């Protein structure tokens, strides 16, 4: 297990290295003077000169790369060309918002998706199954923005139950924060809930017709243990794998959702940065996204190994 984790962590580091080189080269491959690119088009020559000095932009590329990595690791990600604020500060402000949104959406997806999947499998071919698969299909085919607009129309405009948009930090007003995050996390989580429901259902159907479940029944175990322990335990690997595969969709979904509900998160930061060609921010956003992706995949691999004794004890399936 230790070796397995170390190996996976090693390959994660390699991915991060490659990503950092690409990001580093990417901004320098843009047409024009990289110092101007990083300072912003309206920057004064003095600012441009300062940037050139700070990043050593007239030195050879390898030396620049070393400077870049050193600065990144110490948290110096440059300054936003919009307002001159340090990018690291902006990230620290925006990231928690998106992490909260993503975590809530995942929670929604796991609770609804896994439960509905189990129920649909246990009640296969009966009403609960049809309801779950029907909603699952709807959840898969309805795009985020449409679901979001529909939600705003119904719950905010017509019924006036929930605020249409906006954000308050959890630390300032926990209730208001959750109230405002409710609709966005439902909207973002709905698609994942649908995917999880379908995968859980089919994994559970396979497990429930397996020989080991029959053995569990032959022991006289209550159905709750047969389904909730024996069948579910073997279906969880599927759930974890699906979660890992859906991560990219979660990130892009967060971008859209934050736009709809005007949530000042990472996704909105990304869109704004691209629209204003705020390269230091774009650079940091890409780096953080890749790092997040790599980190979560690493966690998914470890969770997968933990759930599967065959992987855990033999040290991995990747050979």
């Amino acid at each position, binding site marked *: 297990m230790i070796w397995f984790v170390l190996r996976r962590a090693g390959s994660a580091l390699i991915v991060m290295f490659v990503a950092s080189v690409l990001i580093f080269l990417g901004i320098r491959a843009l047409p024009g003077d990289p110092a101007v690119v990083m300072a912003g088009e309206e920057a004064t020559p003095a600012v441009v000169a300062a940037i050139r000095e700070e990043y050593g932009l007239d030195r050879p590329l390898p030396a620049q790369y070393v400077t870049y990595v050193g600065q990144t690791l110490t948290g110096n990600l440059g300054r936003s060309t919009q307002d001159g604020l340090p990018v690291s500060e902006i990230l620290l402000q925006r990231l928690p918002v998106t992490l909260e949104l993503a975590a809530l959406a995942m929670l929604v997806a796991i609770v609804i998706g896994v439960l509905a999947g189990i129920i649909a499998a246990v009640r296969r071919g009966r009403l609960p199954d049809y309801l779950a698969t029907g909603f699952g299909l709807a959840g898969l085919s309805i795009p985020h923005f449409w679901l979001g607009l529909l939600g705003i129309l119904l719950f905010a405009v017509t019924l006036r139950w929930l605020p249409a948009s906006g954000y308050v930090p959890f630390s300032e007003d926990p209730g208001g924060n959750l109230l405002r995050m409710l609709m966005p996390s439902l909207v973002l989580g709905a698609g994942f809930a649908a995917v999880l429901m379908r995968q859980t259902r089919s994994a559970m159907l396979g497990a429930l017709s397996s020989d*080991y479940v029959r053995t569990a029944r032959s022991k006289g175990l209550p159905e709750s243990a047969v389904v909730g322990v024996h069948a579910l335990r073997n279906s969880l690997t599927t759930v974890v794998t699906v979660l890992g595969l859906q991560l990219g969709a979660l990130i892009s979904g967060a971008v859209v959702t934050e736009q709809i509900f005007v949530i000042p998160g990472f996704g909105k930061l990304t869109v704004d940065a691209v629209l204003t060609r705020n390269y230091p921010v774009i650079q940091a956003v890409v780096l953080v996204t890749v790092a997040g992706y790599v980190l979560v995949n690493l966690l998914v691999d470890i969770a997968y190994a933990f759930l599967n*004794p*065959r992987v855990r004890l033999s040290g991995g399936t990747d050979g």
Partner: protein
Amino acid sequence: MTLLEIKDLTVGFDTEDGLVHAVRGVSLDLAEGEILALCGESGCGKSVTGMSIPRLLPPDSTRLSGSIRLDGRELTGLPEAELRRVRGKDVSVVFQEPMTSLNPSFTVGYQIGEVLRRHEKLSWKAARARAVDLLRLVGIPAPERRINEYPHQLSGGMRQRVVIAIAVACSPRVLIADEPTTALDVTIQAGVLDVFRDLRDRLGTAIILITHDLGVVADIADRAVVMYAGRAVEQAPVGELFARPRHPYTLGLMKALPTAAAAGADGRLRLAEIPGMLPSSLSDPAACLFHDRCPRAKDDCVTAVPELAASGPGHLAACFYPLEDGSR
């Protein structure tokens, strides 16, 4: 004393092709401490008969009728909750598929301990200690170590013995063992049969032994029931059956099977010696189902069902033209 009494057990399955007749009116009884062999070709309904007793058949598609009494208590109408107290405690099962019958995600110790916790209300610690004893009983070396292992770390033979350990954990009154030795080496086979014998001798457990291996039948069983196409066609004490088979099918079975080598690699038996095939399980004609493969068949075999009739001490055969003494 009769422990288990099955009367006119009929089991069908709803399938896309129609109703599959798996068991067609089987009656048998089992005394305390008796070892009864259930033999016959692949697909003749041995497993379905066995699984009907603890009702481990798919609930949605199974059509079951007849009576199954354990100690005079009717099991067929019993609610699931009641039956769960019977499963694993009074009636337990060793399944035919040793490679897939254990849950890959739990240790051997957990899977044995679970049944002890359920029925004997043991603590995890006590259940574990008992599980080690049980593994030793079924002949698994180094049980203290094996108890922490997962099924994929064990060989097929060891998995089968773990399944047996689970089945015998709560000292069942009836043990249904479905091809328990097929996956095992001959040397281990003998050990497993000893476990069964010991269980019977110590606790008076009655055993239904489903097997195609007539060597095993001769070795351990007291009585045997021969099934064909869902019907019990002959039933007799083992010595009597081997000495004087009455049903032409039984004779064919014995000729076809001097050794276990006649069985396929999967342990399922296909009869090559008797020409012809099993009749379709989709129809249920009022005829002897063996008639088209039978050298002794006459007209009435095609128009009426022969009932089991006495043809010797404790010997029943369902044939209009049974074999005479010495006709083999």
